[in-house]
């Protein structure tokens, strides 16, 4: 079922207001390669915690007034500057009320692809703020992926050692 942006916002808000996560199919390429068209995105409510720099959030775009999922590249007191990882220009600033929730999980073809949601989000936000991310996004993706997989393997190895 294909929902309009307004319908998606209404349903997402209703679910997040209940303190629960909302999953939906991402459409578009503005966050590629971190979120691609057809990925399953899980948006969760902030539940009182502060919005963090570099987080990928679902919000109402000040330009199109439609639902968008982009990254916070700058915090300005109570307003946030947002930009897609795969677009050269920022969306503009939005107030906290326009931010519906944060992206907690990204699934691609049944596998978790949460790259860009961890501590590396700050680096991505910095590069985007400087205008450098657009040129290096695919290089960064290729560099970060093996690094993350390596760290995951070490973590799993440590875990299995402890279980022995």
């Amino acid at each position, binding site marked *: *079922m*294909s*929902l*309009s942006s*307004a*319908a*998606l916002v*209404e*349903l*997402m808000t*209703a*679910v997040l207001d*209940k303190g*629960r*996560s*909302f*999953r*939906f*199919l991402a459409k578009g390429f503005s966050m590629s390669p971190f979120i691609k068209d057809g990925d*399953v995105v*899980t948006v969760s409510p902030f539940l009182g915690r502060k919005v963090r720099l570099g987080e990928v959030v679902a919000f109402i775009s000040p330009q199109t007034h439609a639902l968008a999922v982009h990254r916070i590249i700058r915090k300005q007191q109570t307003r946030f500057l947002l930009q897609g990882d795969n677009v050269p220009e920022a969306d503009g600033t939005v107030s906290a009320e326009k931010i519906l929730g944060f992206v907690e999980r990204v699934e691609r073809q049944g596998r978790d692809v949460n790259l860009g949601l961890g501590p590396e989000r700050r680096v991505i936000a910095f590069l985007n703020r400087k205008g450098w991310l657009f040129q290096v996004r695919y290089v960064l993706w290729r560099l970060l992926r093996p690094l993350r997989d390596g760290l995951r393997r070490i973590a799993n190895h440590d875990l299995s050692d402890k279980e022995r």
Partner: protein
Amino acid sequence: MEKKIDIEAAYKASDEVVAREIEGELIIVPLTSGIGDMEDELFTLNETGRAIWSKLDGNKSLKAVVAELQEDYDAPVEEIEKDVTGLAQELLNRRILVEAAKT
């Protein structure tokens, strides 16, 4: 085993769903899956379904719902009862509807 619907009992929407009338359609999202726009996870009700759903408030029995719908619609009572119990059973099976506590 699936629970059978009881026409003397009252039913209401589960706390584990969000239902919204959007763009002329009643859309139900189960919070357990939480999947917003995936075809197999969203439920929509047609006009008859919406009329029945609006009366499932947890206070009225299904029998009372049938009687109210009979006043609103010019249709045989057997047909209305079949629609009401059929939908209620389907929604109960999907855990969208729960039996209201008897007071």
